[in-house]
């Protein structure tokens, strides 16, 4: 089966006159099969959001240098004319953003924001679009959808807004949905509901989902394949169970150890990864994670580790955690 979305060696650099480029995404490659749920995990500033914006071609044209390729169903998105891209967006590929309040237009009733997409991409008339919109809001679990069509975004709760945004994103049954931290702005209880809803809808419609998050819990519950990003590069990729069962990259390992556990002995300190993303080394002649890595060797600050694939796992590390640990 050929991949629905194929990202090859994607590199995003922000350019500024008189200053060296800031490389946000540095050679990211991954694939998404039709109907598959893929996770992109990493901490703030590792390039997850930029990757998603680059795939949707939503980065500003000026001051950004994009290289590599993004192929969607055989079409190279990076060279596609903007008009064709606009046809694809919303119909074939859609996106759900992080902040549900600011992602809805505050002066337009929610219903109109749903019908707008339906009328644009599915050529529906005013009334059928309205009926379909009510139907969609119903499907994402918004009570009393007919009345909600006339509500303004500020009259809905955060969870409702995110449900509405999901309804809008899935209105045209796209083949690919990118969810950029869809639950970060929500309460924990609402988070679980929204994730369930996303998973269920994606299964029903056969939409492939790229889940972008910093929350490993989110990934553990949904994604088949997980990509762990660090400083703009994928450091480890494996099937979910393999990744969570035997994390090999020290960064993944550290992330998993820093999740609070209910069964931890009382009084034990929570493990943490020292330092911050700012302590990175440039990937050009080192491993960016080396300064924070408990397993770093001499080699880690001299030679860039190359990605190696073994046993269905991609790993970029000179001194990985042994598979037997834990």
């Amino acid at each position: 089966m050929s991949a629905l979305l194929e990202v090859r060696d994607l590199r995003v650099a922000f350019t500024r006159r008189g200053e060296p480029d800031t490389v946000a995404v540095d050679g990211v490659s991954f694939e998404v099969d039709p109907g598959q749920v893929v996770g992109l995990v990493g901490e703030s500033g590792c390039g997850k959001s930029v990757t998603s914006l680059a795939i949707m071609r939503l980065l500003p044209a000026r001051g950004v240098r994009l290289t590599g390729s993004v192929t969607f169903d055989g079409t190279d998105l990076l060279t596609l004319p903007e008009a064709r891209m606009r046809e694809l967006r919303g119909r074939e590929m859609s996106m759900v953003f992080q902040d549900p309040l600011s992602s809805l237009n505050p002066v337009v009733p929610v219903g109109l924001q749903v019908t707008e997409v339906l009328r644009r991409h599915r050529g529906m008339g005013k009334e059928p679009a309205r009926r379909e919109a009510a139907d969609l809001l119903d499907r994402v679990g918004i009570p009393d959808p007919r009345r909600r069509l006339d509500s303004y975004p500020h009259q809905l709760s955060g969870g409702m807004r995110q449900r509405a945004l999901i309804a809008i994103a899935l209105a045209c049954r796209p083949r690919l949905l990118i969810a950029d931290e869809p639950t970060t702005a929500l309460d924990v209880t609402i988070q679980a509901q929204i994730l369930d809803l996303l998973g269920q809808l994606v299964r029903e419609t056969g939409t492939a989902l790229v889940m972008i998050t910093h929350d490993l819990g989110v990934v553990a519950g949904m994604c088949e394949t997980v990509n762990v990003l660090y400083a703009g590069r994928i450091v480890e990729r494996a099937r979910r169970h393999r990744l969570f069962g035997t994390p090999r990259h020290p960064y993944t390992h550290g992330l998993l150890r820093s999740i609070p556990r209910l069964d931890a002995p009382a009084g034990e300190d929570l493990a943490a990864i020292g330092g911050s993303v700012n302590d990175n080394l440039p990937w050009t002649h080192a491993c960016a994670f080396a300064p924070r890595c408990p397993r770093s060797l001499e080699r880690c600050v001299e030679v860039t580790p190359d990605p190696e694939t073994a046993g269905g796992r991609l790993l970029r590390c000179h001194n990985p955690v042994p598979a037997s640990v834990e």
Partner: protein
Amino acid sequence: MATTWLERRRSRIDGLAQGRSLGAEALRRLRRNPVAITGAVIIGAFVIVAVLAPLLAPHGAAEAFPELQENLRPGRIPGPQEGFPLGSDQLGRDFLSRMILAARQTLLVGVLATLIGLVIGLVIGTLAGAFGGWVDTLLMRVTDVLLAIPSLLLAISVAALAASPSQTTVIIAVSAVAVPIFARLLRGSMLAQRESDHVVAATALGVKRRAVVLRHMLPNAVGPVIVQATLTLATAILDAAALSFLGLGDADPGRAEWGLMLAQAQAYLDVRPALALYPAIAIIVVALGFTLLGESLREALDPKGRR
């Protein structure tokens, strides 16, 4: 008892849940603000007087009365008397009628000049903010040049271009001052909108460029411009009065105008100060009314002040 209370409460909650636009919300807050009410009352009274002026004014603006004229002497202008509550002006015309009829001119010039300035400013601001690039650069440099010239000086220059001053030239001159202000303001908030999440989200849904600009950017960007329009009405009235005062106003003697009345009353300040005082007060009060309403409108529409 209990049921009616419950029903009332339920319908109130339903009402809250029903779509109530931001505009309705702002209006509710305006109604509670005494400053806004003061401004609205002043403007309301002014508009009523201006619209009904021909009915309210006992006499015509250019009508001179022999019984007033025969009492006109150097150093004496007849004051209030039977049939002429505010007395005569320097040419034996009814001062009250002229004050009332002038309101009409002021409203007409102020509103038309602001509207013209607003429309042209909106078009320029939208083009600059939506397209960016060289369109933006070109339009904004021209705007900057216009903004660099003091507003009254600009209005005088534009008005002086016309062969003979008339009401139309006053309107054009005053709106020329307003255009760059509106254009810059709108362009700024359009730029802010372009970066906003919901515009990126709309783009991510494949919404057409024109719809993104007109439905998602413009309505969110016009707030400050609308507020500016009320404030501009005040300055437009002041500018128009200033142009008339300087002799660049409406030359038609059949129409009364506060600025011109003020100018002509200068020579009689020691004889009858009321001739200068009343038009001056009228101009100040009306301009104040628009400023008060504009300021409270800005407060009411400010999303940070939302309670």
